[in-house]
């Protein structure tokens, strides 16, 4: 074949005038193309015409003279030129990869569907879905679609690089030359158009712009030739008005990522639409005026915190102070010792009790340290040792006499401590004691083995040195005497204890010695007490143990303590008795006591030459004025020890049986109530709450193999529950440096948290060894 071969005409109808099928027509065309590159096709609606045509020089001319079928130019090759003089059907240029296809009339749907290269010129308008799926391989030229008229709906869907030029000349719909909703899914290429549209192009895929210089030149460079190919050079001037042309450009994914946040920024909506609907712009402006609802972060300080730290120094009691009936502040004493203020430490204790050595150091079971926090770490503080260490012989200074006087009936621990506290405040305390010595049962009954005489004598001597205290011995109390005292004194405190042994009227009870009498006689140096070799003690409490101990001392060989219930004895007393061989038997009820011993209700004889009963003592209060309320023999009092007579108090065992330290505590309270009343104030009892054990941080300390052996050791070991020990740990751990140590006029120092730095993490509270920092809701 040569470039100038003779044209061949292929007919679409056979000799009988019947339409040749598309399949056969294609075979005829392919055969003709092997002979000539100039084909005239008298088509009769055959499909897929004009494609897959090759020639040596690459040029093939196809002229259609007849009705075109579907897919004109399907799979058209570069170099092929197809001219259709009239209109064409669907899918012109389907899968075209290079042919020039010129349709002088209209064309229906699907023009350029999936075309990758080449050019399609349409002299009229086209139907729906033109330029759909159009491709562009950058190694080749871009496919082009020129439409003189308008395009139908859904134009350029998924266009991937094709260029369209829609001239808008004699459009099918003058109001909308681009059809409804073009450019859906379009990712490449661009579309020139002129004329009106409905603006429904896909905003996510295409943007509407004006052609720039380069794009305008591209259009103008091609326009004359294309108009000529369509035979419409007359339109050149009309179509050369730049201002009339628009361009729909594909949006890049990068552009889309930036733009796809809705058509209006929310801040703009808030200002333009939301706020204007409400007076002042706030929907809650009427019911919550000024309510700040502005955005805050997650970690906040200042007033936005939900809790805040509080330095609760000395606002909770340490267990030692809390559980001691006298509330002796052992932790304060140990803090003074840590600070090297030994004398102040002693004085502090003596201000609370005249008997640190005799009671704390000897007879007291030390309720204070039974709950010592240090016990959870290793061993409790040795408070008895601390008590015995108070060796100063002078009482604390007392205030000037106020002229007020209080009579105290009974010189036992309760009465003495009442006197001790009244005297310190300048109130004269006159003690009226029935016997010839002070101390009540401490002096009369407790064995010297448990309360060393030297210690006792020293503390009595110190007591007697206290100003404002006067002691009268050998005063037996009567109703008349009491009435007299009540006239002479501002207040009277009854502290006579219990000195009437309780007995049981079983047969032979007259053979039984009362424990009280027994112990008193033992301690009375003037008497020489004898006991049998076998001794039975009825009542196995701690007093019974003391009796057992003394019975052994007095020559007994076997002591048996019997009780109707499990013995209540505990601690030092029980240990001392057991060590000497005392036996405890229970439950045993006594039927009778004979010369042979004690007979139980089951008939068993427990041999004994001496039987002692130790089931407690009761008060002897016949001297009380009529009308003072009693409860089962004991004087009825309120929390401060006041009886039904405003100016008559009762403290110690006469009120309620207890330990020596309980009596000391009651004496202190009664004195406090009287002092407050004299001063015209309300009495404020000890009311600090007990510190919660889990507030302390014990892990800051290491367990030690044994308890301390000196005051200084114990001062170091003390955990200072509830009182700041000035360790700086809070200041150190605070992650925002909110906590600082500052000087304080009264306390000396304090730790302060800066609200503007604190984020309320609670680390200070979690770290504080003493349980001071507390997180409070805020």
């Amino acid at each position: 074949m040569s470039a100038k071969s003779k044209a061949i005409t292929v007919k679409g109808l056979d000799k009988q005038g019947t339409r040749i099928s598309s399949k056969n027509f294609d075979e005829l065309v392919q055969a003709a193309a092997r002979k000539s590159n100039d084909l005239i096709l008298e088509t009769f609606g055959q499909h897929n015409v004009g494609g897959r045509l090759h020639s040596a020089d690459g040029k093939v001319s196809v002229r259609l003279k007849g009705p075109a079928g579907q897919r004109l130019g399907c799979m058209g090759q570069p170099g092929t030129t197809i001219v259709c003089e009239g209109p064409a059907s669907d899918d012109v240029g389907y899968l075209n990869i290079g042919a020039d296809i010129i349709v002088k009339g209209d064309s229906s749907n699907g023009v350029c569907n999936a075309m990758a290269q080449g050019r399609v010129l349409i002299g009229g308008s086209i139907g729906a879905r033109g330029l759909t799926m159009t491709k562009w391989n950058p190694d080749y030229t871009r496919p082009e679609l020129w439409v003189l008229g308008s395009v139908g709906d859904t134009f350029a869907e998924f266009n991937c690089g094709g260029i369209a030029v829609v001239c808008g000349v004699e459009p099918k719909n003058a109001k909308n030359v681009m059809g409804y909703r073009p450019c859906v899914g379009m990712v490449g290429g661009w579309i020139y158009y002129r004329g009106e549209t409905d603006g429904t192009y896909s905003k996510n895929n295409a943007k509407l712009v004006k052609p720039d210089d380069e794009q305008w030149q591209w259009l103008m460079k091609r326009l004359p030739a294309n108009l000529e190919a369509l035979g419409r050079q007359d339109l050149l001037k009309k179509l050369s008005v730049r201002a009339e042309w628009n361009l729909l450009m594909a949006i890049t994914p990068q552009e889309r990522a930036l733009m796809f946040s809705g058509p209006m920024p929310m801040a703009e909506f808030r200002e333009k639409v939301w706020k204007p609907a409400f007076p002042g712009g706030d929907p809650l402006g009427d019911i919550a005026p000024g309510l700040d609802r502005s955005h805050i972060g997650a970690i906040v300080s200042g007033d936005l915190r939900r809790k805040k730290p509080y330095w609760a120094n000395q606002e909770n009691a340490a267990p030692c102070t809390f559980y001691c009936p006298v509330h002796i502040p052992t932790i304060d004493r140990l803090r003074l010792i840590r600070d090297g203020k030994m004398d102040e430490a002693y004085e502090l204790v003596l201000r609370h009790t005249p008997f640190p050595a005799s009671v704390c150091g000897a007879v007291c079971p030390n309720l204070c340290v039974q709950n010592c926090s240090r016990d959870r770490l290793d061993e409790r503080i040795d408070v008895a040792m601390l008590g015995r260490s108070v060796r100063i012989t002078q009482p604390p200074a007392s205030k000037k006499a106020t002229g007020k006087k209080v009579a105290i009936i009974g010189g036992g621990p309760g009465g003495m401590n009442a006197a001790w506290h009244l005297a310190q405040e300048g109130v004269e305390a006159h003690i009226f004691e029935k016997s010839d010595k002070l101390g009540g049962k401490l002096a009369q009954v407790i064995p010297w083995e448990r309360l060393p005489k030297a210690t006792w004598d020293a503390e009595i001597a110190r007591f007697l040195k206290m100003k404002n205290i006067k002691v009268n011995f050998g005063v037996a109390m009567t109703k008349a005497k009491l009435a007299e005292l009540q006239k002479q004194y501002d207040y009277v405190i009854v502290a006579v204890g219990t000195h009437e042994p309780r007995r049981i009227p079983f047969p032979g009870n007259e053979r039984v010695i009362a424990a009280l009498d027994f112990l008193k006689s033992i301690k009375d140096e003037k008497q020489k007490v004898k006991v049998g070799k076998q001794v039975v003690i009825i009542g196995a409490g701690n007093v019974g143990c003391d009796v057992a101990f003394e019975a052994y001392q007095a020559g007994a060989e076997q002591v048996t303590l019997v009780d109707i219930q499990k013995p209540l004895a505990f601690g030092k007393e029980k240990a001392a008795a057991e060590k000497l061989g005392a036996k405890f038997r229970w439950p045993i009820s006594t039927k009778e006591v004979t010369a042979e011993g004690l007979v139980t209700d089951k008939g068993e004889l427990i041999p004994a030459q001496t039987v002692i009963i130790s089931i407690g003592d009761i008060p002897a209060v016949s001297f009380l004025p009529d009308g003072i309320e009693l409860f089962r023999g004991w004087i009825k009092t309120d929390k401060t020890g006041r009886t039904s007579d405003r100016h008559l108090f009762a403290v110690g065992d006469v009120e309620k049986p207890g330990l020596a330290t309980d009596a000391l505590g009651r004496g202190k309270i009664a004195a406090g109530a009287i002092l407050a009343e004299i001063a015209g104030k309300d009495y404020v009892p000890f009311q600090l709450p007990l510190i919660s054990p889990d507030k302390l941080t014990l892990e800051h300390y290491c367990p030690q193999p044994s308890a301390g052996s000196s005051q200084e050791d114990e001062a170091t070991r003390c955990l200072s529950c509830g009182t700041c020990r000035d360790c700086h740990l809070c200041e150190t751990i605070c992650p925002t440096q909110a906590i600082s140590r500052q000087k304080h006029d009264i306390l000396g120092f304090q730790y302060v948290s800066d609200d503007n730095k604190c984020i309320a993490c609670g680390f200070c509270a979690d770290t504080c060894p003493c349980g001071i920092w507390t997180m409070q809701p805020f």
Partner: protein
Amino acid sequence: MVSVRSLPVNPSSLTYHDLPWIVQHREDRCTLCGRCTSICPTGSIFLTYRRQRMPKVGLTPGAPNQDQRGSAYRTFMGIRQNTDLARRCIGCGMCAMVCPNEAITPAPNANDPRTPFLNNQKGEAPTRGGRRNDRNSILDRISFNRISMLTDPALDAGRHEFSCNTILGRILPPEEFLRRQAAGEWIPPTREIFPFIIGSMSFGALSPNMWLGLLQGVAYCNEVLGIPVVMCTGEGGCPPWVLRSPFLKYIVLQIASGYFGWDEIIRALPEMQCDPAAIEIKYGQGAKPGDGGLLMWFKVSQLIARLRGVPAGVDLPSPPVHQTLYSIEESVMKMIQTMSMAWNFKVPVYPKISGSTSAKSVLNNLVRNPYAGALLIDGIDGGTGAAYNISMDATGHPIASNLRECYLDLVAQGRQNEIPLFAAGGMGKNGNITQNGMAMIMLGASGVHMGKYIMQAAAGCLGNEKNRCNVCNLGICPKGITSQNPKIYRRLDPDDVAQRVVETFSAIRTEIKKIMAPLGRSQSLPIGMSDAIGIDDKHIADRLKIKYIC
């Protein structure tokens, strides 16, 4: 050396691994910045000091230090969790969110936590907010199987114009409609709304920033995007200025047994610029059927109290039932008529009931009532701000079969197009909101209400069906969604919520199209198009009268 007193054990003593969430803290990463303990909503975590004993116990004769037998100690620090049930870790993970070093996170306890046995302290039956803690969802298993493949022209979700909206309100049969129109008679009001509705969550259950953020987002959807989303107020009234705003038309006002906030609504009637979208009468709630709402005192702030017309700081229980209504007939007549009349019969009024085997009885009453606008059925998987665990966990009826039965009942009467049914309760519980909603629609619902999903999507609610967080009842919501404490709810920016509402509804709209297009539907929601769905369980398929697929 450890006193027994320091180790109390009682029936409720727990270790950290008896709790539902175990706080995992890496001491090697922790910088001790305090943020985790600062943010923790329950105060569960705290700084601890730990002492480690390091005994010297060498036995080699003659070795150095042989005579220094004893113990040394090392102290280290860490973040630990409280084992007290009242302050247990709820797994919200805010600690992890604020940790600069990824040093801390709660991990779900893979073993059986002991809490279900002990969460009745002081004789109080356990309550919580949130959800049922059941990940099962049959809606998740329904798939859309009738795909247009060559048999009919496929639609393109991106190209084609879809009508995704639904109708709320009574729809008259065509002949009746024409007759009434010609005769100039009353025609029941209807609304064209988006079929995914923000379900009733009260101003009170939600924080002001959350509630107003939702409304702002709804307004944007309507006015900027043209998506006609509506939201329901729940039983807490509506801020007076919102009632007088143009946004009222996007709001369904709820009236419930507590009648909170209705005085303000009635006061606002003469000044309303527009009618509300609808009135919802709550008779029951899916999460706690037979139980009324309960706003605990710590959520009754000054603002909430003002809005509800009550004193601040008191518990606000709603009665389980409307106190003066004794029968379905009376309820339907009395309340629907009253509410309809308030807006001159121009606003659709419909009841909301708990999913129940008795739902059909209610429905049949509504069918006969000329003013009833719809029926909303709330299934057992619905969420709530506060409920007894037993109500939430075990009381109620799953929505799918309940709604399906009702729909088929209407079909049997030939009236399925007259009374729209709406479904709620567990929509999107696992995140598949559009799939769940469209499955319900094809089972017969005209639309679905969603609560938990929108909280999760729009405000980042941390709750899940594995008991994470779920403390909406306590007012300590770490995201500020359900708290009335400004120190917490100010963490939530209403603009952000609104933005997320917009994003969520935009996406739902796209997904609806992606479901409708392959079905070949574009111009009406496929309500009741049950031939298009299937499920891989024969029993469920039989019960729902849909295809069994495998």
